């Protein structure tokens, strides 16, 4: 469904991504892991058009999207969340989602209908009781769910999640994992997620990509990847560094 071919991105002299190949099939939940600064967020920014690739191609549902603008990519059905959540702080939770509904792929016209749909989405992420609270007053876990509702408001076919589990406690992580499965199973959304919390990745993803310094280190089922010596070294380093 989403395919990257030799995707490369530089920042000045820094190779943030080098000849990266990846594929995510429809209906999958795929993980992307790697040490800090390995280029995970950069890959999402390249896919969503924020940092155009220097070379290589990105293909979504058979169509090349490498040169598309972020808003065009959103309209094609690729939604994302940000690693550091970015709610529209001055607006209520409901207004945050309403705007996304109105501009997304729902084909909903009119403020009233938009609000109705937004309220449903807030209920879906169990934020209905915080509907009229300014986003500024939401706590971290709530902001993450708001970010998720806003991404879903687009009615995406493909969802990029950048470290949605980080900063959550164990029960919150369990809830979030359940939510992600529901999004995939009920809404039929394909999911590509970046994660640091190893346990969460192992429990959710059917396929994992590991990158380091912008280069693919390994790819495969979670149990294969976690046994891969290169991955173990990248994550745990030589004994001294850990």
């Amino acid at each position, binding site marked *: 469904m989403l395919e990257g071919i030799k995707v490369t991105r530089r920042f000045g002299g820094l190779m943030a991504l080098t000849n990266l190949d990846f594929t995510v099939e429809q209906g999958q939940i795929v993980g992307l892991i790697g040490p800090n600064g390995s280029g995970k967020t950069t890959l999402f920014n390249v896919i969503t058009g*924020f940092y155009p690739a220097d070379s290589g191609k990105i293909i979504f549902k058979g169509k090349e999207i490498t040169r598309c603008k972020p808003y065009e990519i959103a309209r094609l059905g690729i*939604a994302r969340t940000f690693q550091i959540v970015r709610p529209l702080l001055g607006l209520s939770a409901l207004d945050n989602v309403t705007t996304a509904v109105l501009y997304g792929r729902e084909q909903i016209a009119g403020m009233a209908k938009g609000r109705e749909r937004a309220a449903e989405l807030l209920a879906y992420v169990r934020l209905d009781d915080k509907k009229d609270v300014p986003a500024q007053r939401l706590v971290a876990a709530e902001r993450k769910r708001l970010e998720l509702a806003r991404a879903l408001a687009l009615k995406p076919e493909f969802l990029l999640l950048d470290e949605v589990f980080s900063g959550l406690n164990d029960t919150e992580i369990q809830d979030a994992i359940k939510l992600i499965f529901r999004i995939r199973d009920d809404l039929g959304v394909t999911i590509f997620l970046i994660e640091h919390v190893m346990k969460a990745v192992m429990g959710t993803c059917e396929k994992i990509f590991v990158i380091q310094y912008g280069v693919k280190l390994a790819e495969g089922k979670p149990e294969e990847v976690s046994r891969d010596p290169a991955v173990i070294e990248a994550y745990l380093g030589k004994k001294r560094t850990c």
Partner: protein
Amino acid sequence: MLKPKHILFPLVMIMLFAFPVVRPPLFFLTLCFSVFMFVGLSESWNLLGGYTGYVSLGHIAFFSTGAYTTAVFMNRFGISPFITAILGGVFSAVLAALVGYPVLRLKGAYFTISSLLLAVVMQLIFMNWDFVGSSTGLWYKLLPVSIEVNRILFYEAMLIVATAITLVVRYVERSKFGAGLVAIREDEDVAKTMGINTPWLKMKAFILGAFLAGVVGGIYGYYMSYVHPEVTFSMNTSLLILLMSFFGGCRSWSGPLLGAVVLSLANQLIVTFIGAEISRILYGLLLVVVIIFMPDGVMQYAKGLFVREKR
């Protein structure tokens, strides 16, 4: 249900429309005229400046384009000033479309400075352009009716235009378009991930604001019966527009309205009875105070005080 505002609004409007009937002294008529003008200017400025947060100091460029369009088309081609006012709006909109593409790619202070440059450069051009009277300015040929009737006619015209602009801005604020503009102010990148074509939306707000300011300028020029680059392009006007919107609160259509009414009344009174220099100093100070202590405007500030007291 009938609320007080359902009666208050028509009542105020009827009173304003009927005001010339009591034959007020010219001073009061002009005072009201300038209040309406500033309502129109601040509201139209707010479309981009308030909702998207792209603070422009170039709004007078569009206002002046309107004023000059009316002067030129009336004098040279004898076209009715009511038509030239619309034409002025169209020219302003075209100007906005031309400069908008490069200028709206800039953010924050860079945008503000380049919008200021637009006004400065245009002023220089008009100062040296003989076709529009260069530095001697242009007198308008008045309509063939008495001067009083002329003034009343344009008092009413400005009242209608200011009301229409306020209603348009209020409508935009409550529409999908307005929601998109606010998203841009809050976080332009997030707005893009929502599927918002941010450059195009900013452009639309810029063009619409310019069009409305151009119409205001067209009627203003005629009422004053004279245009001169140093008057119409006055930096002071740009600052006043900005101050009014910030003072009233630029997140909602009611802010610029309140700010324009209160501050243009205050401004006229100070200029008339104390002196223009003093008024400029006071405005400078007020702008600083408002931006530091009440970034959301006096109304929000007052609400905040009230809520805190109740707790």
